[in-house]
């Protein structure tokens, strides 16, 4: 579907930037199309919703594990379900790490809790009826669910805060946050699951969680400046390729090593493109 956005408006927006109180027109829909387009504000809020819902999903799964343990599930079943839940809990929490770039005061899950979750599902059963190990899973997942719940509430409050915002300002802020996060290198720090060989998982989820935001807001950049749209897609692809290529077979990441250095170069390139996108909507 080719947009039919008035050419003069595109030119105006590209040359002067949107005023912060501007509403951004959505790409037009074709009759009979079942694919509704998010408004510009919804596209930004959807990214916050992605973060908040993802963290909340982790909380829900954590609580289910607690319930299973309380209901006396067998250890074999409990640990299998807990491992499955853990995957989503960690992936979604780390994928939402970008929210802390602009809002560092939002509630987080502490490193000790993350470690306890993984340790509890990695433990070998060595007690009668695996009671100690089951209790350990229950305790770790209860703490994890509690903290994820607090983080989800905080993330959701950011959605409410932005509901009264104007399109251009929200769009600009979104790209600034994405750029800040990638440029800061925070995605490569605080790797608290190194002992479990999960450095790459954590970094990959953080980076991919940031790239994933692009999909929702892309149509609005494409409408205004196709070059920047293409450049972001190319840089995203480069970063994803580097992530796959450089981390293959790697469990532990050296903070000063070649792998993170290469990823940092690619992340900086993408951050620079996000800044260009941000400027399109800044007043």
């Amino acid at each position, binding site marked *: 579907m080719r947009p039919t956005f008035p050419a003069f408006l595109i030119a105006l927006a590209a040359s002067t930037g949107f005023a912060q109180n501007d509403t951004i027109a959505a790409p037009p829909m074709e009759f009979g199309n*079942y694919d*509704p387009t*998010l408004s510009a504000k919804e596209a930004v809020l*959807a990214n916050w*919703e992605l973060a908040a819902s993802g963290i909340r999903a982790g909380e829900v799964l954590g609580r289910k594990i607690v319930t299973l343990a309380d209901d006396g599930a067998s250890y074999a079943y409990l640990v299998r379900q807990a491992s499955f839940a853990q995957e989503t809990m960690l992936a979604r929490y780390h994928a939402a790490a970008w929210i802390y770039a602009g809002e560092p005061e939002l509630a987080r899950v502490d490193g000790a809790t993350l470690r306890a979750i993984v340790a509890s599902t990695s433990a070998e059963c060595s007690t009668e009826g695996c009671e100690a190990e089951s209790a350990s899973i229950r305790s770790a997942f209860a703490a994890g669910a509690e903290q994820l719940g607090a983080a989800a509430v905080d993330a959701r409050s950011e959605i409410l805060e932005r509901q009264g915002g104007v399109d251009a300002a929200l769009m600009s802020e979104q790209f600034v946050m994405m750029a800040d996060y990638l440029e800061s290198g925070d995605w490569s720090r605080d790797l608290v699951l190194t002992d479990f060989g999960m450095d790459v998982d954590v970094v990959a989820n953080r980076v991919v969680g940031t790239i994933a935001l692009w*999909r929702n807001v892309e149509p609005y950049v494409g409408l205004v400046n196709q070059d920047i749209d293409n450049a972001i897609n190319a840089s995203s692809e480069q970063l994803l390729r580097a992530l796959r290529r450089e981390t293959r077979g790697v469990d532990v990441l050296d903070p000063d090593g070649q792998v993170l250095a290469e990823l940092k170069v690619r992340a900086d390139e993408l951050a620079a493109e996000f800044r260009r996108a941000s400027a399109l909507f800044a007043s």
Partner: protein
Amino acid sequence: MRKALLLVFFLSVSDAQAEQPISTTAEQCLSCHRTPSGAIDIVGLEALKSLPQEWPFLFEDQFDLNGDGIAGTMRFVSGENGPRIGVFGRSLAAGRFEDFAHIAGAAHGIEIAGPEVMDQLRAAFEARSPDPAFPFSTRAEQERFEARGCASCHVTETFEHEGRHYMPLSDFLLHDVGDGPRRTTPLWGCSTCLTAPGHAAISEDN
């Protein structure tokens, strides 16, 4: 001609369903969804209300990070109180029945005028939407389905609704298999999808 067809379909629904008054709008919408049995081709509308919000998060791997060759993406769509996770439609176009009805109505030139009409429409669809049966007769069938890789997208996780366990056999993610992103079709009402020749995912001789 269209009216005559509608009448034939209308007469074929069960007595209980036929007793319910149907608005013209609902009739227009139902006319494209009715099956010869009088039910509609949308399965599990009632159960779908209980699909856990976290469902697609369990399976999403947007950039195929796990390297299994399958990338799947959830979709956020417009909703009454902000963006919601899409569940309805082949392109996950809506998070609620009401939103999808408006989208489909607009696409077919049908106006759903007001909440009362929407309530009637929902009731008419829910009354005629078959409750999905559990898709596998035996554990071995399910294991064959999983072993053949079908469960990578048609996941075999279950959720509970009013004391029953449902297996929609869908991750409710969009996958692009060459013709644009499409939702994994829930197979929970389609026993022939699992056993028919050519699609035999669980037949022992395949």
